[in-house]
């Protein structure tokens, strides 16, 4: 699907041990599987079912999503950064696609 676009807001720098806030948004229909089309047929479910955040390859947090999460899922959370590195954010679609985006953070003493 071409309509899926992840957006993130991550600080570029932080002090060692600082807790930074990360905001993410991905454009996605989050089709619940409850709705019916004009002919009365159920529209098949298609949602982002999982989201993960890693820093330098280590898992920081993970979210399991159900159809009750709104379209264009917004997720914000916190990370305690101890070292410079790269965040990797991944969104897992019901259709098997994984959408990934990265962001670098520089940590000062």
């Amino acid at each position, binding site marked *: 699907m071409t309509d899926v676009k992840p957006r993130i807001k991550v600080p570029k720098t932080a002090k060692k041990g600082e807790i930074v806030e990360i905001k993410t948004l991905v454009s996605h229909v989050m089709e619940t599987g409850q709705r019916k089309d004009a002919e009365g047929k159920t529209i098949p479910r298609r949602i982002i079912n999982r989201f993960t955040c890693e*820093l330098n390859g280590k898992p920081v947090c993970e979210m399991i999503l159900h159809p009750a999460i709104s379209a264009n899922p917004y997720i914000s959370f916190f990370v*305690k950064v101890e070292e410079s590195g790269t965040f990797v954010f991944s969104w897992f679609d019901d259709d098997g696609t994984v959408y990934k985006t990265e962001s670098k953070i520089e940590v000062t003493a």
Partner: protein
Amino acid sequence: MRERSAASRRRVIQGAGALALGGLWLAGRPAEADLPKLQKLLAELTGGKTPQEGKVRLDMPEIAENGQTVPLTASVDSPMTANDYCKVIHILAEGNPEAGVCSFKFTPASGRAEFSTRMRLAQTQNVWAVAEMSDGSVWMTKTEVKVTIGGCGG
């Protein structure tokens, strides 16, 4: 004549009883309809542990004009150290077609046990936040959100 009036009186009384019961059923319905479903999912998520009230905070608006997208923030007061941290916060809904909303799993690298997202609410209902800590204890809170336009229809 006497016979007939006795019969009709009986019918009136029966009718009133049925109405009263029906009224009770209607009044009790919105919040209770899906509680067994929620309890079943809760037992699966917590391994059968009964949550204690407290520790978790769930911030949501009291009134949601649009049930399609209702903001929520869930948090637990935890030091988030390697030995003492919040492992997961589950969000559950009493009055949606499915009880599960989301589960957010933390690690000590999270630094703070708090997350925000936006959810769908089909109708006015209680939303639950259930947290499991690294020591195995399970905590919960719930909050009622009044919904003007439901968010799961089609």
